[in-house]
């Protein structure tokens, strides 16, 4: 799917654009960072609204607590850091001062998954979905591209609840358009018409045999796998599960009923991640054969982003193989 025409952009850049947008629309929006303004794309906001931009220094615990206090006074705080530090380092402050206090802070974790690639395993967080989806009151969002990330910022600012937005440093293809609907809690089956593909690249998604549920930066890989599979006569549906919590239960159960087999794909540990959330839902409501694509109980390491995706099995080939495996099981 990635051809010369495909535009690449990271979800963190989409976030930065969205932040300026909500800053313009609502005076209550403030942005805080723990010494990572540039990296989490808050520079444009900081320049435009210097009085509403706050540096707390390298102190992520304080970042969460201060934002909670500001929200209690009616502000809409966006707190940005690398996901390894927030919600990684400050998980308990997020639990207590933000979620337990039910303050509508928007936690923005950048460089999630393997996207802090050259920095090595210390900075690659593959656990943040697990950490956040267990917290009551917290909404967990994982955008599939920069356009969706921008829409999420608007939706997060509007909802009076704490939100976590998982972002990537990696430049990934734009697969949705400004017109693609986004609503918190709604999962989309990526239909042909939604894709910015040239007509010869469109592929058949009719009567899918397998459902692929992907989130974040893995959605475009799932689409690429789906296209290649369709060429060999296997039609699969690709769902963009961009709200990991609350799950779009109806849409997931519907897809499981239609296909009878689900493959989940995420740039995260398999344990506790998006696939686990889907499995919890289906095990109770519509037991379905599943395959999980994700990192298997390992830390990351230094490399290029693509090298790491290949090493940990988060690529098109692995998705295709998982689909073929589950088809065999299905018989």
């Amino acid at each position, binding site marked *: 799917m990635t051809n010369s025409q495909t535009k690449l952009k990271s979800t963190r850049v989409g976030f930065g654009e969205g932040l300026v947008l909500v800053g313009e629309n609502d005076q209550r929006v403030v942005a805080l960072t723990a010494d990572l303004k540039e990296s989490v794309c808050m520079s444009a906001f900081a320049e435009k609204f210097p*009085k509403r931009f706050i540096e707390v*220094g390298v102190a992520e615990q*304080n970042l969460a*607590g201060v934002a*909670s*206090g500001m929200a*209690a*006074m009616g502000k809409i705080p966006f707190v940005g850091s690398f996901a390894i530090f927030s919600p990684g380092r400050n998980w308990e402050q997020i639990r*207590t*001062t933000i979620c337990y206090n039910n303050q509508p802070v928007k936690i923005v974790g950048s460089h999630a998954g393997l996207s802090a690639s050259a920095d090595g395993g210390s900075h690659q967080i593959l656990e943040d979905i697990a950490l956040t989806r267990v917290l009551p009151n917290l909404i967990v969002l994982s955008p599939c591209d920069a356009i969706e990330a921008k829409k999420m910022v608007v939706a997060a600012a509007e909802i009076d609840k704490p939100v976590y937005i998982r972002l990537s440093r990696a430049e990934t293809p734009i697969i949705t358009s400004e017109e693609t609907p986004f609503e918190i809690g709604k999962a989309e089956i990526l239909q042909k018409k939604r894709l910015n593909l040239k007509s010869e690249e469109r592929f058949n998604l009719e009567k899918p045999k397998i459902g692929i549920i992907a989130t974040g930066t893995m959605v475009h890989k799932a689409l690429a796998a789906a296209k290649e599979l369709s060429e060999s006569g296997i039609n699969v549906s690709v769902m963009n599960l961009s709200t990991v919590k609350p799950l779009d239960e109806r849409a997931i159960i519907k897809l499981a009923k239609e296909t009878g087999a689900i493959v989940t794909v995420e740039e995260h540990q398999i344990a506790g991640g998006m696939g686990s959330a889907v499995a919890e839902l289906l095990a109770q409501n519509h037991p379905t054969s599943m395959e999980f694509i994700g990192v298997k109980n390992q830390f990351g390491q230094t490399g290029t982003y693509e090298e790491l995706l290949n090493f940990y099995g988060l690529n098109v080939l692995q998705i295709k193989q998982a689909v073929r495996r589950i088809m065999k099981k299905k018989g």
Partner: protein
Amino acid sequence: MLSDEKIKFLKLKANEIRRTVVETLVNAGSGHTAGPLGMADVFAYLFFHALNHDPKKPDWSERDRLVVSNGHICPVLYAVMAHAGYFSVKNLIGSLRKFGSPFQGHPQRDFLPALENSSGPLGEGLAQAVGMALAEKMDWEIQGRTLVLKKGSTFISKFFFCILSDAELQEGSTWEAAMFAGKEQLGNLIAVIDRNKIQIDGFTEKIMPLEPLREKWEAFGWHTAEINGHDFRELDEAVSVAKTFIAKPSVIIARTIPGKGVKEFENKPEWHGRAPNKAEGEKALKELQ
């Protein structure tokens, strides 16, 4: 200056609060005794003198905010709020720590909306109070106003108080918040430390020494005061002076006697985290006549 009459009134209130604390703890069967009794005077002073608040309108937007960071001393917070008229004393006694009660084992806003914050895990309340104070200051600045002194009083319309235990200063997050408050020059923030020198495992200076405490806060850019936390005049002077520091957060280190008012409970770390039984409670109430 507090009048003699006011001091007499505050003493009376503090004693009523202590009695309620003992009664609720006996009924609860568990909870913290030393801290709540030790802080009864500070809470009586705040709720019956210093705080600008309206118990009939707990969500009044112009109220001063009181963030209790050390949530485990909530028996005294509940008791003072009851005596101030937020809810009835009768409702409180008998329902602390009971299932479905507004008076959870540690403060929870969903169960008791009049609270400013839900707390329990230590070292977190100061950051929340700092965030509140900053949000308020930011609004002034966005509107192009500055906080200035005028004839000894200030334009600061509301103050943000934060109650901290001394042992929770062992949490690193407290100092992250302290450093940040100094940087932001939060003159509308007043922290009060319950310096009772005990913690669960023993005396603070043995478990993890905090001294020199005042100098630590000064180094972080705070105005500091150290007072007897059972002396209403000293308390009032410290708060009045703190309010004149418009470009510096203030901390009042209130030396208190844990378990104050009941000889049996005073200065004993073992009373940090346990509640009196019925007999102990009756004895204590006799002392608190």
